[in-house]
């Protein structure tokens, strides 16, 4: 029967028809096996490392809570109790979102930078550009560890692209600082002093040197710090903007004063991965923003200690704080007196809000100034004064004072007087720019002796426990998953 074989033939056909290749290539993405092969990929790789700096726990949001609001210049009465607790050195869970982000996100940046540092040198491309890209990644890595070591102390030091089975161990603080110095020196050697217009925003040689100066400064290596910061001040070709307020709007980006900025953009390009600065939406004034943090009264009063030569308030006040200024204060299109008629004594953070747009949204397009000449001059002065060169510190301080219409300093200030003046200028110049916490740390002010003063500045310090609250607790998940990490003292 001939047709008996027909089914068998059909069967064979079906069997063969199914035998296409089992392998399925990922149609969506390249893999690490196919990437890191050409110049374009090297550039997109390092761009992605910069992208990580926009994360919430990097420069996007939470550092302002950790450095400014946790310090004595700010406080929180957020209805988000756990956030308010964070400003009061208190946690119900160490995995509390901001604390988790402050740990995860800089390490995310480190992972990206480590990939660039490990893989780009293998790529065949122009050697200068290749070295530059690796240098940028080293700067980015150093910047991440600079924040991690300041907030968490002894943390794992990871210098290779991460592998799933690795459990990196807590590393002594001194070794982390040493690695930051090494990365920055290597970066400074290969990075250009400036970039063409299209690449403005990448790390320059001067950014690396300035951060190296700050690294020495935090380790109280005063003369080394002064040498690096002086190099930036004297040879970097930077200059102050005429108007202090221009630093904090969209016109003040990548200017002659700028040494390193994290670049932010508005919410129209979220699909590209590029994001905006989001802390101002949280810390800005109630109504347009959420007022999850406010300036302390003590900080506010610092601005009234000295009038300008023309008898006015220090102009930095009205660019830093929304308050009920008798001369008028516009808060997103409505006067302070009208908007807050029931609480005229309240103070709100103004710096970095887009008050000039009339409306506040999450993604704010202002670049965050990580280092700018105005700040570096004061840090330079701080380094000189602590190194015993008080007289040399006068000139940089006066440059900062002159811009805002303050008279030059009287001559013959003692080291202590000069220290007080520098601290005062840092407060006024660099509020909401992360510096206050660094200052408290390097001048040993987070201590039992100074604690009563801090409590007077900011009652949140009533919850500060010496020996514990100087550092943040390492997130619980890290401690749970990584047996080689040691929780910070007091948080165990």
């Amino acid at each position, binding site marked *: 029967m001939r047709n*008996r074989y027909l*089914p068998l033939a*059909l*069967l064979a056909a*079906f*069997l063969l028809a*199914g035998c296409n290749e*089992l*392998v*399925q290539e*990922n*149609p*969506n993405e*390249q*893999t*690490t096996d196919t990437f890191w092969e050409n110049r374009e*990929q090297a550039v*997109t790789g390092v*761009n*992605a*490392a910069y*992208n990580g700096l*926009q994360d919430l726990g990097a420069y996007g949001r939470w550092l302002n809570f950790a450095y400014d609001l946790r310090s004595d210049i700010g406080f929180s009465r*957020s*209805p988000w*109790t756990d956030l308010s607790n964070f400003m009061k050195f208190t946690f119900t*869970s160490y995995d509390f979102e901001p604390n*988790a982000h402050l740990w995860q996100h800089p*390490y*995310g940046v480190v*992972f*990206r930078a480590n*990939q660039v540092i490990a893989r780009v040198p293998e790529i065949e491309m122009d050697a200068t550009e290749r070295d530059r890209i690796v240098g940028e990644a080293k700067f980015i890595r150093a910047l991440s560890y600079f924040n991690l070591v300041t907030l968490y102390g002894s943390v794992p030091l990871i210098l290779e692209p*991460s592998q*799933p089975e690795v*459990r*990196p161990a807590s590393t002594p603080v001194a070794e982390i600082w040493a690695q930051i110095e090494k990365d920055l020196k290597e970066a400074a050697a290969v990075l250009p002093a400036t970039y063409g217009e*299209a*690449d*403005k925003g990448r790390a320059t040689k001067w950014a690396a040197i300035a951060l190296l100066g700050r690294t020495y400064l935090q380790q109280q290596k005063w003369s080394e710090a002064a040498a690096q910061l002086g190099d930036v001040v004297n040879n970097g070709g930077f200059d102050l903007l005429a108007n202090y307020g221009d630093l904090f709007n969209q016109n003040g*980006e990548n200017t002659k004063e700028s040494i390193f900025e994290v*670049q*932010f*953009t508005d*919410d*129209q*390009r*979220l*699909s*590209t*991965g*590029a994001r905006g600065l989001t802390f101002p939406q949280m810390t800005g004034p109630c109504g347009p923003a959420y007022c999850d943090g406010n300036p302390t009264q003590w900080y506010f009063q610092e601005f009234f200690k000295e009038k300008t030569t023309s008898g006015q308030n220090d102009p930095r006040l009205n660019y830093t704080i929304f308050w009920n200024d008798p001369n008028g204060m516009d808060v997103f299109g409505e006067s302070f007196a009208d908007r807050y008629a029931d609480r005229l004594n309240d103070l709100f953070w103004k710096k970095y809000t887009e008050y000039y747009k009339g409306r506040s*949204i999450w993604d704010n397009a202002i670049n965050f100034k990580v280092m700018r000449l105005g700040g570096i001059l004061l840090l330079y002065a701080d380094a000189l004064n602590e190194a015993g060169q008080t007289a040399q510190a006068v000139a940089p301080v006066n440059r900062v004072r002159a811009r805002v219409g303050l008279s030059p300093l009287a001559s013959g200030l003692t080291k202590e007087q000069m220290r007080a003046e520098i601290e005062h200028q840092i407060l006024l110049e660099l509020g909401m720019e992360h510096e206050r916490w660094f200052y408290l740390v390097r001048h040993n002010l987070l201590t039992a002796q100074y604690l009563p003063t801090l409590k007077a500045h900011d009652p949140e310090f009533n919850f500060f426990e010496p020996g514990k609250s100087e550092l943040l607790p390492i997130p*619980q*998940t*890290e*401690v*749970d*998953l990584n047996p080689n990490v040691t929780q910070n003292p007091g948080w*165990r």
Partner: protein
Amino acid sequence: MQKLRQCLLYLVLLLAAALPANAQRAISGRVTDAADGEPLPGVNVVVQGTTVGTATDVDGTYQLQVPSGADSLSFSYVGYVTQTVAIGDRTTIDVGLESAVYEGNEVVVVGYTTERRRAITGAVSLVTPEELTIRKVATMEEALKGRIPGVVVNSTGEPGRGAQIIVRGLNFVGEGTNSPLYVVDGLYMRENPNLDPNDIASIQVLKDASAAAQYGAQAANGVIVITTKRGQTMTGNRINFTSYVGMQEIPKKVGMMDVNQWAALNKQAYANAGLPPMEGAVSPKFNTDWQDALFQRGAIQNYNLSITGGSQNATYLVSGGYTNQMGAIIETGFDRYNLRVNSELKKGILTLGETAAFSRSNRQALIGFPLIDAVRMLPSIPVYDPNNIGGYGYGTPANNTFGTNPIGMQERETNDNISNQVLGTVYSELGLIKRLRYRFNFGFQFEDFTNSNFIRRAFIRQNNPDERARLWQTGDNRSSLLFENLLTFDNTVGRHNINAVAGYTEQTENYEHLAAYREGYSDETLQVINAGTMNLNNNGYEVENTLRSFLARVNYGYADRYLLTASIRRDGSSRFGPDNRWGTFYSGSVGWVLSEEPFFESLPVLGSYVNNFKLRASYGTLGNQDIPDYAYAAAIRQNMSYVLGPDAIASGAIQLNLANPNIRWQDNSMTNFGVDLSLLNYRFQILADYYISTSDNLLVAAPIPWSLGAGGVPYVNAGSIRNRGFELGATYRYMGHDFQLNSTLNLTTIKNEVLSLANNNQPVFAGPFGVTRTAVGGPIGAYYVLKTDGIFQSDAEVQAHKSSQGKVIQPNAKPGDIRFADLNDDGLISDLDRYNAGSGFPDLEAGFFLDGKVRNVDFGLSFRSAIGAKIFSVPKFWTDRLDDNSNYRRDIQPWSPENPSSDTPRAVYGTQGAANATAVSDRWIENGDYLRIQNVVLGYTFPARFTQNLGLPNSGLRLYVNLQNLYTFSKYTFWDPENVGMGILARGVDDGQIFPNVRTYTIGLDLNF
């Protein structure tokens, strides 16, 4: 959709018109019980091949006009074997019906073969058609609840949300699924098939490796085989109409404080913190009951119409249904239209057939965590406040809370999940040569899933960002194809029975995703992408996978006494790297039917009371490939861009997630021992199984330390888990004339133990605040928390709480604060003091069913219970933490000097109360034991006379009342002790996103003619 219903009606009329009319003659007779000669009332008597029929009266007698061409009558009655009798020239036909012998004659689908229950050696359970029809269930999962030992079903009350089904414990740890494989008429599905339960003929669950072996790589978590209804050969055209309508409600309301009670305690909390009272507590203006605002009376309705029939060589079924459900929480609902066509044709050596189901459903899902907010929001805040943008009330400095208005959360957002699905199979079977058949089966599933999420501009929380109205719309498209080529061989030689299958199967799946986003809607009634003006965004991706298998299986039986099954298969999966794609898996089982031994009847006791006695044992391994596609290679993520220069996008791309190129098949091996026992003329049956299942090379999405800086969790093959369980199903059936009873008790125990884990046995933490821990030597997902040890009554007690070294453990505590146990005795309360406080997995789950019939009245009663589980209650954390402004439970009495005996700490607003509110403590863990009256059904079947008078001869009409989830005995403070948890690793966590199971009252109607 109106149109669809019209079409259906038209189809019905068309078919009805085709019914033939014939000359008739009268036949009468009497139907009795063959055993005792007692008359049987209500027996269905039908002329074979037609719709003509009647039922016997109280005396068991019947009269019937049969068409002249009719050649036989069929007598059927619940609990008895259906008998077909040739008519011949007779006008009187008396029949004695045999009591049904359930055991042994049920046909069970086991992989690619159907076997008689008697010959099965694996662990297989089934839900019979009767069990499905007595209780009208809204979903297929509902039918499985408590029904099958070893099968755990956890559901929610959310309309249209699938339940979680776990067969025999957990073989998998990670982000993947533990869900079983569903095989619907031969089509493999990994997710719960959205079927109309009216279309289901039977459900079988294959639990052990031997039974599941033929379905291979996807069967490692058990297989649920669903067979849909078909037309019967040689029956007339029959029309079935079923419908029920009812209402649903949340069975419980948590007792919260009214505004005055709340204000008093809130003032106390502020006073204890040394703060002036909050304005809203001093002069409250509202008294909102947020639960009343959030819950509503839901409604459910279901209609199904089916037409079936068959000739000698062809059968058909056409069925259409509509279900509509309005949830018991506002703004939730589900509706579904479904249509099914099943048919089969035999022509010579060729059989052709198809099953095809079309459905469209729309689900409005629950949004956010409304149940937390329903107890967290202050009673002093109104639900609606016209002064706010969007019109909702929320926290203010005077009523300071960060809670979200749960009503606003549901109302401001439309959330439509629309699924259009076509699924089915087309098959052909050829009788090649004697006893050898070739079958080709083509299965298909096409699904379009669209989600539309429009959020109006509305403030619902204090400090809410002023976000523009926005729309997310996603379109997902899945096509899944299955090709099966099978050769089966069947032969009986003397007492030897052999049955073998060899086959080749291949499945491919393609999944495409496309999403679009816009915001800035000046007219919020235009909820389409085109009407948005700002922040245009979109994304899309595609994945594909292939699974290929070769298999062989042999069943051998000698004299129905000694049984043997062996399988081998080789599976290849595209999910693994090139070197690890293929795996080989074996299984085998043996059975010994003692009751078939010649000596059995001579045994004392056993021989006289035991009708069937079978011992079973099986062992086998199966592979598991439940990991995402392409997981073996580390992807470079695009669109990690930065801005440079004059605000220009600089493209970025880099690796974000780690990957494991060596990932390979997980091996699940299972040993099963079972006993089947039937006693007392099959009235009493016991099925008992004990199994040990071990999963090696466990596919674990092992969390990695955050310091590695990588997102996601790479899959590794590491570790193993052992599940052990005992399952018992005991059934007693009583079949009297006027009274029938069918009662079943099912017991399930599951004990899982982690034997080893990835990364040097690194524990896996999961759940909110990392509250559960999966560690070697313990069970999956044990709560790992601080131990509370009462309340400090005085400063002296604070000072007396010392370590053995004399260190005061909680020096900052005040009277009224919680005393935590310093379990490691280091003088500190820290992470190291956490202990295992039980888990969300019950030790014992039970189902008890009592179904019966008294004359024309039928009833069903079922209970379900789970014992030994603990619940971590996130709602309780929010109501009882007392350092945050929430509403408080009416039952709590926080410590105060006047109320020193309390076990609730003092209320302190803010940071000083934070220690008492520590998230990872056993304060939030509760006993999860419960006993639930799952179902009460009462039905009445109208006598044949009645329907005959209605003009519907030869028909059945039943009306019933069904009460589901009538009452739950439980100590749990919040809504529902049965919860689906937060994934397998955090089972038992009530996260406040879970819709409590609802109580449902329905009345229904079944009509067939």
